């Protein structure tokens, strides 16, 4: 442990962690409540010979990030709800063309312009299904400034290792919290870099199947002269509509996260061992839930918390284990009911699933969770 502690703003922690993880390119567009990430990156990147650019719009920001990443540089962008919607186009490109990149979504109230300075957790489904077509994406949801720091580094590692866009999503409250963080020494930090293609150009196939379903990447200038497209392509990288080749390549693409899920999944269990009443939630709502579990335990209610840190792909088996002895599962979330749909899908028939929803721009407080769970326990 380096023991280098800093008191940091959530969004600044994200920027510093990105630089520590090796991010050397940032393109963004101003949007509340994520702008502090761009501001900090504009200051930090020149120090490490990186590049910051404020692009003309949200689509252009992710386009530039993908361009930098295809050039071989770790790259990130940050946004919030309306900008996240606009980024879905190029997020799909990154998924299909398998371009590592990190997209931060500091989530705020929606729909549309919604409540720019108020928190929400209403992009849970958009983060998974926002772009058209079946596509792999990893979504990570930290609940503290320290976790923003560590999970930003992990977001880059996963993105590089599995050649997949990683969405780092936290609500406005977490993004604007000031907390103490143990900051890594970038020189000692072990980070992951994508596999680079080696060998001759002859016979090189940029999307060839590999054991881990992640093909090594060509880099401009390495002599491979590869083709990268958003069209459905064969192993060669060139477009095809041959049903057999399409099926084979799409199945490989969609199997990538499933095959490697043990490395991707991450979650926190609080008092779930004997829990009769399980709470499942993320972000600021999870912090309220942690407190609620303590209060309920004092009152004799066997409550527990299951918090997915990797939200998508959802840690299904871990959830099922945590919910094994539960009479009821409560899903508090700052939306009209999104995560609860996944829990209903995964829950057993004899386990009651209930939601606790708040859409007024105020975080859910522990007392609300305690009251709702006591109601379920009656």
């Amino acid at each position: 442990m380096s023991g280098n502690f800093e008191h940091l703003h959530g969004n600044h922690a994200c920027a510093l962690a990105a630089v520590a993880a090796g991010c050397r390119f940032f393109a963004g567009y101003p949007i509340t409540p994520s702008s502090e990430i761009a501001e900090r990156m504009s200051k930090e990147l020149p120090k490490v010979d990186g590049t910051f650019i404020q692009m003309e719009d949200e689509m252009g920001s992710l386009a530039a990030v993908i361009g930098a990443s295809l050039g071989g540089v770790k790259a990130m962008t940050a946004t919030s709800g309306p900008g996240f919607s606009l980024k879905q186009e190029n997020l799909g490109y990154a998924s299909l063309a398998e371009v590592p990149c990190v997209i931060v979504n500091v989530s705020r109230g929606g729909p549309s312009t919604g409540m720019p300075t108020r928190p929400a957790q209403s992009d849970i489904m958009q983060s998974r299904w926002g772009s058209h077509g079946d596509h792999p994406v990893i979504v990570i949801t930290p609940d503290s400034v320290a976790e923003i720091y560590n999970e930003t580094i992990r977001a880059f590692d996963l993105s590089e290792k599995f050649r997949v866009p990683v969405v780092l999503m936290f609500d406005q409250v977490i993004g604007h919290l000031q907390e103490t963080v143990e900051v890594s020494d970038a020189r000692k930090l072990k980070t992951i870099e994508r596999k680079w293609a080696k060998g001759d150009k002859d016979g090189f196939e940029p999307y060839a199947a590999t054991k881990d379903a992640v093909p090594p990447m060509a880099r401009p200038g390495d002599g491979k002269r590869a083709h990268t497209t958003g069209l459905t392509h064969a192993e060669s990288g060139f477009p095809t509509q041959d049903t057999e080749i399409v099926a084979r390549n799409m199945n490989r693409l969609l199997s990538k996260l499933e095959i490697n899920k043990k490395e991707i999944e991450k979650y926190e269990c609080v008092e779930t061992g004997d829990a009769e009443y399980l709470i499942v939630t993320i972000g600021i709502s999870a912090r309220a839930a942690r407190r609620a579990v303590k209060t309920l335990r004092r009152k004799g209610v066997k409550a527990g918390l299951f918090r997915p840190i990797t939200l998508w792909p959802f840690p299904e088996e871990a959830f099922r284990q945590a919910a094994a002895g539960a009479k009821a599962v409560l899903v508090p979330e700052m939306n009209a009911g999104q995560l609860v749909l996944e829990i209903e899908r995964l829950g057993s028939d004899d386990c009651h699933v209930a939601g606790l929803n708040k859409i007024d721009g105020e975080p859910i407080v522990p007392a609300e969770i305690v009251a709702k769970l006591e109601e379920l326990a009656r």
Partner: protein
Amino acid sequence: MSNPATDVSAHEVTPPGDFEIKDYLRLDLMPHFMCPGCGHGIALRALLWAIHELGIEKDNLAIVSGIGCSGRVGAYIDASTFHFTHGRPLAMATGLKLARPDLTVIVISGDGDCLAIGGNHLIHACRRNLDITCLMLNNEVYGMTGGQVSPTTSESMLTTTTTTGNIEPAFDACKLAEAAGAGLVGREVTLQVPTLKNLIRDGITHQGFSFLEVISDCTEIYGRKNDLGESPEMILKQKSDLRPESFGNTADRPFRPNKLETGVLARSDRPEYGVAYRAHAARAKTRGGGK
């Protein structure tokens, strides 16, 4: 048996020097998918000829394109090729060039890709003046999707979405690019390949953003719809009466004149953005992170 009347090789004009287009193409992708008579192939030839004359290594060449017929041209080039999303190739190329200033980055776009869905990226690419060369292949129509009106469709022309004639004014993309600050702005027709090649050379060698409009012909869809004749006729008319006088045209003059000016239309020595950014970043670094 070869028939001298139809044997293309007998009529082939060998360009000066040792340029052999096959050295720069992915021949295993042939036959290409462009329609007979499409001018995009001529533009491609001029581009590769310019690249050859400049001695740019294929390994250091990055071609970025968007969506549409123009977007599919890049894949035939034996280089690092990126077929990006609709309208965004300039934004993608901005990231690529900033991350990799060692690469020669060329964007191939179309009138719809560059001026409609990608118009915002174009004006800001011009403003920044990053060292990218953008070839906008202007065939006045959305060919890939079946022939809809585009921002450069001449007034009164028929398309599948202007079945009684287009009444929207057309863009003068070069004036737009010049006003937005592009380092070099030029226009050429596919009729004059060596001249087009020279213009592309100028664009690539210019230190800054070069916007080059290439007047291309869509014979199969646009030409057929408007009874403009076969490809040679369309190409021969590129500099004259392809854009007919029409009821709306006078109101728009001189914004979009019938007779198009060609050649280098604007040139400025504004600082190239990549160089400017790196110099600025180096100063910030020595100051310890700036203010």
